[in-house]
């Protein structure tokens, strides 16, 4: 298990000081897949590099199995890292790249060959072993980088946005591969990404970060369906944020939410587009249809009610007869919504759901 205790990291330039991480406390359980998720500049990469030993915390401690590892240099920690740029050694063959860690550990060359061939087989690299990295495609290069780390049978493996340079098809393919390798080998993965889909599909445990702070941690389901802040709700996907004022106009009381006890002030409600359903019932809310967009498996409707725009994703066949300008009945279930604290407005991640009227 890796523990981050009260870690702060300041970067000083000539004129200014910048706090990349402030008082981080985290636990990464052994053998699980952890993701650090957040927009660029949120501190996720800095945190990963602190664990790897490429940076040192300004204050705080990092423990591995209960012992501080701050006094160990990166090469003494035994946490191989997979990089966005692959970082393969261009002057060595694929074989020598994969064998590098074993050579460092003075493994007898017979064993080196056996282990390299074994892992190359597993990652479909056998036919490329004697090529130079530049002769491989991006996907193959990242497989070599994976093999190079996996061959050491590490307890902890670090990933710094390893799939960002690949095209989307390969990305999906490789993330499944990484996840199944992690399950087979049982290493602890700490994986940095800004892609929420990647985070949700791979992880056991997601850490959402922003502005150098941890915003929320939990399973992918928890952070998707029960975001605690507007920021997390928006970062994990499209969402309707409904203010208390608007909710009172439709006579929706926060007390209706069964998962809270008191009536917190100023809290909003987050409802995902797929959690809004069309309804013909008398009690349904009535909104005007502003826009209709066919997405294939779903149809996206933009509705307006009491000056609030709402986006709903409904099954395509339900939306066939609908025309813009129509009054449409819809509902959402209180128990499916989440109660969110407003967070600082963050221009970059304002979702598409708040276009200019």
């Amino acid at each position, binding site marked *: 298990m890796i523990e981050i205790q009260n870690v702060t990291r300041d970067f000083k330039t000539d004129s200014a000081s910048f706090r990349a991480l402030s008082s981080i406390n985290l636990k990464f359980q052994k053998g699980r897949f952890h993701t650090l998720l957040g927009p660029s500049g949120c501190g996720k990469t800095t945190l990963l590099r602190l664990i790897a030993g490429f940076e040192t915390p300004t204050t705080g401690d990092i423990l591995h199995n209960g012992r501080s590892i701050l006094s160990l240099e990166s090469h003494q920690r035994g946490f191989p890292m997979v990089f966005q740029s692959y970082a393969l050694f261009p*002057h060595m063959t694929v074989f020598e790249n994969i064998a590098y860690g074993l050579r460092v550990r003075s493994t007898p060359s017979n064993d080196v060959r056996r282990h390299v061939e074994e892992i190359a087989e597993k990652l479909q690299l056998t036919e490329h072993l004697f090529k130079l990295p*530049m002769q491989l495609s991006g996907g193959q290069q990242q497989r070599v980088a994976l093999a190079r780390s996996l061959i050491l049978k590490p307890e902890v493996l670090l990933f710094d946005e390893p799939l960002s340079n690949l095209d989307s098809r390969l990305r999906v393919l490789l993330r499944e591969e990484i996840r199944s390798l992690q399950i087979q080998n049982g290493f602890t993965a700490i994986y940095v990404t800004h892609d929420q889909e990647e985070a949700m599909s791979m992880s056991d445990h997601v850490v959402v970060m922003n502005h150098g702070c941890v915003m929320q941690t939990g399973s992918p389901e928890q952070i998707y369906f029960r975001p605690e802040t507007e920021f997390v709700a928006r970062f994990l996907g499209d969402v309707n944020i409904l203010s208390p004022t608007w909710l009172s106009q439709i006579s929706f009381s926060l007390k209706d939410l069964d998962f809270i006890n008191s009536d917190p002030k100023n809290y909003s409600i987050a409802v995902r587009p797929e959690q809004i359903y069309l309804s013909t019932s008398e009690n349904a809310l009535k909104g005007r249809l502003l826009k209709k967009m066919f997405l294939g498996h779903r149809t996206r409707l933009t509705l307006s009610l009491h000056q609030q725009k709402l986006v709903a994703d409904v099954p395509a066949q339900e939306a066939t007869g609908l025309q813009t300008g129509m009054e449409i009945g819809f509902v959402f279930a209180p128990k499916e919504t989440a109660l969110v604290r407003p967070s600082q407005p963050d221009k970059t991640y304002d979702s598409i759901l708040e276009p200019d009227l």
Partner: protein
Amino acid sequence: MAKTDSQIKWLRPSQLITFGLLLLLAIFVWWPIGSILKSTITTEAGFGFDHYRFALQSNSLWSPFKNSLYLGVTVGVLATLVGFILAYFTSFYRLPGAFLIRGLTYLSMVSPPFMLAIALIMLFGKQGILTQSFLLPLFNWAPEIYGFYGLVLIETLAYFCTSYLLLSSTFSSIDPILLEASYSQGASRMKTFWKVIFPLSLPSLFTSFLLIFIESLADFGNPLILSGNFKVLSVESYLKITGEYDTAGGSVLALALLLPCLLAYVIQKWVVSKKSFVTLTGKPSPSPRPQLKGLALVMASGLVVFTCLPILSLYSTVLFGAFVKTWGAGHEFTLLHIVNSLRETREAFLDSFLISGISAPISLVLGFIAALILLRSKASGKQLIEASSLLTFAVPGTVIGIGYILAFNDHPLLLTGTLWIIVALLAFRNLPLALQSVKNNLLQIDPSMEEGARSLGAGPTRVFAQIVTPLVAPGLISGFSYAFVKSITAISAIIFVVSGSWNLITVNILGFVETSHLSKASAICVVLMTLITVLLTSTQIFMPKERR
């Protein structure tokens, strides 16, 4: 709450090395310059400004100072202009003869810096072949090559390469998509030139002007041969010291030479380069360069040929001069000059190669260490190393040479007359070249390569030996070649520190020129350039192939 033990451990060796390097730079770069200053304010009474007062009164300072600046500005403007025009046409258009310019830049790198002046004398001097057989008989006119105009001509031809290389790299880093964007907005080629290309290249134009200005001021070999009655600082300070034994007077002139150079360099480094728009990140998208047609093609190629041909003919003059029996009279082929001059200068040849062979590796090793400290360590004082090494670019060789004879003339570092004063001078003079070469290479290496190796368990020594060194090998090789060639062809600084027992080949060439043995001078130039070319070609064999 461990305050990062690891960082301190990492720091310790690099901090120590940084101090060591700074100490060396202080002794071999700054102390000599300080010694010049000291000698100008030391009088018989102890301390005073008598030397300055005397220099100003006797007019021995003011007139060469004005001449040097006048020459520097003129050559700076002309050479920049020539380089700009050539770079523009070869960068943006497909032009026959572009290879000529590349050939010239190569020749100017491997030839002794005053070789064109020799050729000029052989062609247009009083006994020159063109003067005697063409100008005098037909026009009854002998051109006056000794003085301002001859110097302007030769320095412009010698230094336009600086401007050409600088502007070519600026032009090639301008993404052609910018030009296409401009055309698509309806701007003509002319308009695009004035509104897009010219403004983007303005900082490089200034840089080029300032660097050539420094080169011209620092030039020693050409003025020594050609200046005649047009006195310039570098030559005057040399004559003061070696001719009149007036060390303090020479030092005053050397300082007067140093100041404008430093000023120009500081302006270039900290003002002009900050204004540069052109970023060198990313490769510009390749776009086919248009072929000029009709009159434009004729004019552009004419321009290239018109510039290149005279220079090429100057180089060929030296080549012919080396192999014909009597220049201007009997033009039958002979190897006599080669054989004779080699016999006379055998010692100097061996000394030159020996000394460069010792000094270039020192430059390389120190440059490599300095580059690693600059880019990969957190040691304090590294900015000082960078500033020191950059500023030495701006210090004219004459100044360094005078500094060395003043600084190492006495205990505890009595080096005068030994091999080591020449070695130290060349090693530290060329250190910045090696440093830049390694640094540029190191900048291109993704730091995650080293981090990757460390995360796989490799310690600092192993990372250095197995990852960094092989990856910067091209930079090491080119840094070494550059330092070596510069050592072999150096003249301005080392002319002060050579001695009876240790002489260098470039000094011998100058000696032949002064005694009007131009055929012998040409012969050595040709042999020297051939040897350097063989050497550079053979280092290319060690150059690893492109891996990215």
